[in-house]
């Protein structure tokens, strides 16, 4: 008995109930979840009970600064005082009316993979150059702070070692009786001393008075102690290392080719007069989980919402599922807009999904003459069309049919799904998400 045990049991019970994900997608209240914060009501938590139909019940609200006009739409119903579960709680602030299991999109995607047996592997696309590895590569120019001084010192030292020579010894050498500059130079080169002819000549001139101090080169070799460069450095210390511009190297980071998994999802919805409430809701039920899923699968997901009747326009997510308009339907208008908007998301850098939904009604010949060419033209991992016809097929509603006829049923970048009731939603989602071919790119 006790708190720990009750929490433990709650977790277990919650786990069990999350099997109901599919059911939630079909019937649950999706509205409270945004792509970055998915709230799934944990079903067991709201044990069933005899309740009123929420819509039929209506409710009472309080105007913010004035009484609203009759007929004015109200957003989400406000929490009602009767909603809360009394149970003797006198806690100041009561919770909301439902219990939610919060999921992040990654978890949602994982759960949906498990629930539907999906295996969608997102592709990394855009190379993110900012992704810096260790500073292991070198270049000849760069900011001072990245100058590889150690390397430059070593190079300078090496140069010094090769260029330096035992000046004392050569000076004595020049004093040998009757020696010419040329003879001294040749001797030095014969000893592999890196001395220049100019230096010998100059020194030779300087010691002209002392010439004859040594009878022969052999006498110099015997009497003058020769000192190697290393010995000289040790004796004098390293007074000077010849730094040269050509030795300068700047470190710069190694570029690790990190590919970010970017996705842009275009949601297109027919909002024309024929799109009744039921159809609208079915579209929302299908699109919302798709959005969540792709958000969870990709590092970076962006969404574009396009509403259309005979014309198309871009809308915000909040408005997307609610919009109603009159007018006819021209689906190609939406694809034209999509093509335009997708220019910001180059195919080389972005995974693209283009989902459209409607009741398959379209202006005559629009599907064949405009939509299909546009679908072929717009590069995308997947094009999908979701047809929703809750009350049976209308005669002229042939958009989905035409697409299917053209692209075939097993195309790997075009999916057609039919959602005529809540029961079809998960099948449609499966159909769409399992269609994407492995061969892309």
């Amino acid at each position: 008995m006790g708190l720990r045990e009750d929490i433990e049991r709650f977790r277990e019970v919650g786990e069990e109930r999350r099997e109901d994900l599919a059911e939630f997608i079909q019937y649950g209240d999706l509205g409270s979840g945004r792509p970055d914060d998915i709230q799934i009501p944990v079903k067991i938590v709201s044990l069933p009970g005899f309740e009123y139909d929420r819509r039929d019940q209506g409710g009472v609200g309080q105007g913010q600064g004035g009484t609203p006009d009759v007929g004015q739409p109200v957003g989400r119903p406000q929490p009602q005082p009767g909603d809360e579960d009394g149970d003797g709680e006198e806690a100041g602030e009561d919770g909301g009316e439902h219990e939610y299991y919060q999921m992040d999109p990654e978890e949602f995607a994982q759960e949906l993979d498990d629930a539907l047996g999906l295996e969608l592997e997102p592709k990394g696309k855009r190379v993110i150059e900012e992704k810096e590895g260790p500073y292991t590569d070198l270049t000849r120019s760069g900011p001072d702070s990245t100058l590889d001084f150690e390397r430059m010192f070593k190079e300078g030292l090496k140069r010094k070692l090769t260029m330096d020579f035992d000046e004392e010894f050569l000076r004595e050498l020049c004093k040998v009786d009757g020696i010419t500059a040329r003879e001294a130079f040749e001797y030095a080169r014969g000893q592999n001393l890196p001395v220049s002819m100019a230096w010998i000549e100059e020194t030779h001139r300087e010691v002209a008075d002392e010439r004859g101090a040594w009878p022969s080169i052999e006498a110099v070799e015997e009497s003058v102690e020769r000192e190697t460069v290393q010995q000289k450095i040790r004796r004098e210390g390293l007074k000077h290392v010849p730094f040269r511009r050509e030795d300068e190297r700047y470190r710069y980071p190694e570029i690790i080719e990190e590919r970010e998994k970017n996705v842009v999802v275009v949601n297109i919805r027919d909002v024309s007069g024929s799109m009744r409430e039921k159809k609208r809701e079915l579209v929302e039920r299908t699109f919302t989980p798709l959005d969540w899923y792709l958000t969870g699968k990709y590092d970076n997901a962006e969404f574009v919402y396009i509403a259309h009747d005979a014309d198309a326009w871009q809308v915000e997510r909040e408005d997307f599922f609610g919009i109603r308009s009159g007018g006819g339907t021209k689906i190609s208008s939406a694809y034209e807009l999509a093509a335009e908007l997708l220019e910001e998301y180059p195919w080389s850098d972005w995974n693209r999904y283009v989902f459209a939904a409607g009741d398959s009604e379209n202006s005559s010949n629009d599907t064949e003459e405009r939509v299909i060419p546009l679908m072929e033209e717009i590069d995308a991992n997947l094009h999908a069309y979701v047809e929703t016809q809750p009350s049976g097929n209308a005669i002229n509603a042939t958009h989905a049919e035409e697409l299917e006829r053209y692209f075939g049923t097993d195309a790997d970048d075009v999916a057609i799904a039919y959602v005529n009731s809540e029961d079809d939603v998960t099948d449609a989602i499966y159909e769409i998400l399992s269609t994407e071919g492995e061969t892309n790119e």
Partner: protein
Amino acid sequence: MSESDRFKKQAIAADLEEPVSEARNLAEKLGLEPYAVNYWIVDYDEMNELIAYGGFQNRYPHWRWGMAYDRQQKQGQYSGGKAFEIVNNDNPSHAFLQESNTVADQKAVITHVEAHADFFANNEWFGLFTQGRSDEQVDAAAMLERHARAIGEYMADPEIDRAEVEKWIDHALCLEDNIDQHRVFTRRLETDSSDRDLDEDLSAKLDELGLSEEVKAEVFDDEWLEQMDEDDAPASFPDEPERDLLAFVREHGKRYDEAAGKAVEMEPWQRDVLDMMRAEAYYFAAQKMTKVMNEGWAAYWESAMMADEGFAGRDEYLDYADHMAKVLASPGLNPYSLGKQLWEYIENTVNRREVIEHLLRIEGVSWRNLTDVVDFEEVLGHLESPAAVDAITSETLDALEEVPEEWVDREALEAAHAGEVDVDRYPWKVLTYEGLARRHYSLAKRQNRGFLSRVSQNELERIGRYLFDDARYSSIEEALADVDFTAGWTRMYDVRESHNDVTFLDGFLTQEFITENDYFTYEYSQASGQFHVSSVEAADVKKKLLLQFTNFGKPTIVVTDGNYDNANELLLAHQYNGVMLDLRKAGETLERVFELWGRPVNLLTIVKELDEHDIEVARRRNREPEPEERGKLIRYDGEELTIEDVPWEAVEHLAADDVDYDTKPEEWLA
């Protein structure tokens, strides 16, 4: 609890000793009669735990508490919200103070709690659970602890599957609102059909015969008993529709035995669990039925004590005001602000009526001319609390000699003169209930100064027509001298005794109140697919609001037949008030009820149907489609949930049309 922790709590407790005892003194002076309250200092985690467990330390093991705790914690994390108070309905009540609260918060909680404890003790709906012996017999903590122990033992019993117990509790919880909350709680359902007793008798007699189990099983098995039962049983029972579903299934239900593939008697532990769940449902029902009143009541007195009576020190007042503003400002219709406003409204209207009645007795004043001939500024001047009671300090005590005798607590005044009462800190000590009523008189408060003059002609006429003793006073001053300044409070005390949220809202939610607060109703439009404002009429708002409070805001479901179809099936009926059921949830609930009945269960209801075509047509014409009401029978037989049409005659008796909850106007979307 660690030593230092204990020490800290003791220190806080010591600091709060004076506020606790003075709050009680003040509450009693103001007329409250609370249960004794034991205060406990708890830390943040303990507070969350208490809230999760409904204010009690020992509840039966169940995941729902774990869930509530989880939620409580997350809420704290995300919103930074802190739990302020929790008090349980018990005698004595137990209230919990969070150690991290500021002193101002603690004081606010204490005054709030005192008012709750008064409400628990005096509201009649709380008396239903204790069968009217409200004062001594609540014993809630003991009962809940007993339940906790019993269920804990069942779960630990190796013979009983723990998960089964939990599931059984879940089933019962689905029906926790399906009780007869307006009836006095009795442990057992009184069945009016005597054959049930016969059955019991028969079993008892068999027991008395002392037959061995074997013989009983051979000869007088359950089936035999059942047969006896069926032979005598009337075609259907109960005689009257039964609202207490929990009691009904407890008395007549069985359980479905998967292995045997049939209904068998419940295990003793199962009946016991049902009894316990039912008792708890009844215990908590009063709180659910009086949420708005109770919270409003507590908020009202908290404010009277904290703000008006300066119970918060001057330095604490800002903290307090901040806290109060947050509580009252939570969005939607929150019970604190709705309730508080309604109580203030009651106080103001009763006080206004009292004043108007006196003004109408002035020579030459009638309900027709009152607003013209009476100078309201002058009236308000007379209604101001006299300085002698308004600003009391140790310096002004002598002024109290001038005020009416009944306002002054003589004994306390003597003590104050003698320096035994700290009058500067607790000025209210030298006043009586009457004196405090004068000091807190609502119509003289700044925020209510317009209230008197806003009296409508209608109300004047209503008061004027029923007034006796016309023409007694010659001036405003003379008339007002006779006003009973306790009228508002007296009425409030009456209301807190006899009302619940439904009658409270019904009685006191007025046009004036609704308009002033911009309330409106909304309805769902099938044509547009969303909710729209449907009415701003007070009558409509009230109707809609009452729908949310009547019967816990749930549809009324009754048992109409425990032997449906002469096959021992259960027939429930939804008493349709024009708002249909959530059919999905109804189906899910029926599946639970099946577990408690063991045999097929049925529910008769009325639904509104529309087809897509009607909606289409209506939308084109810019109007709302007219749904058709149809009778349905929802049935769960243990395997399959079915919904079938039934002829209208079968459900006609369920349709009540005394109140139309639909507030949609004729042409609201045009």
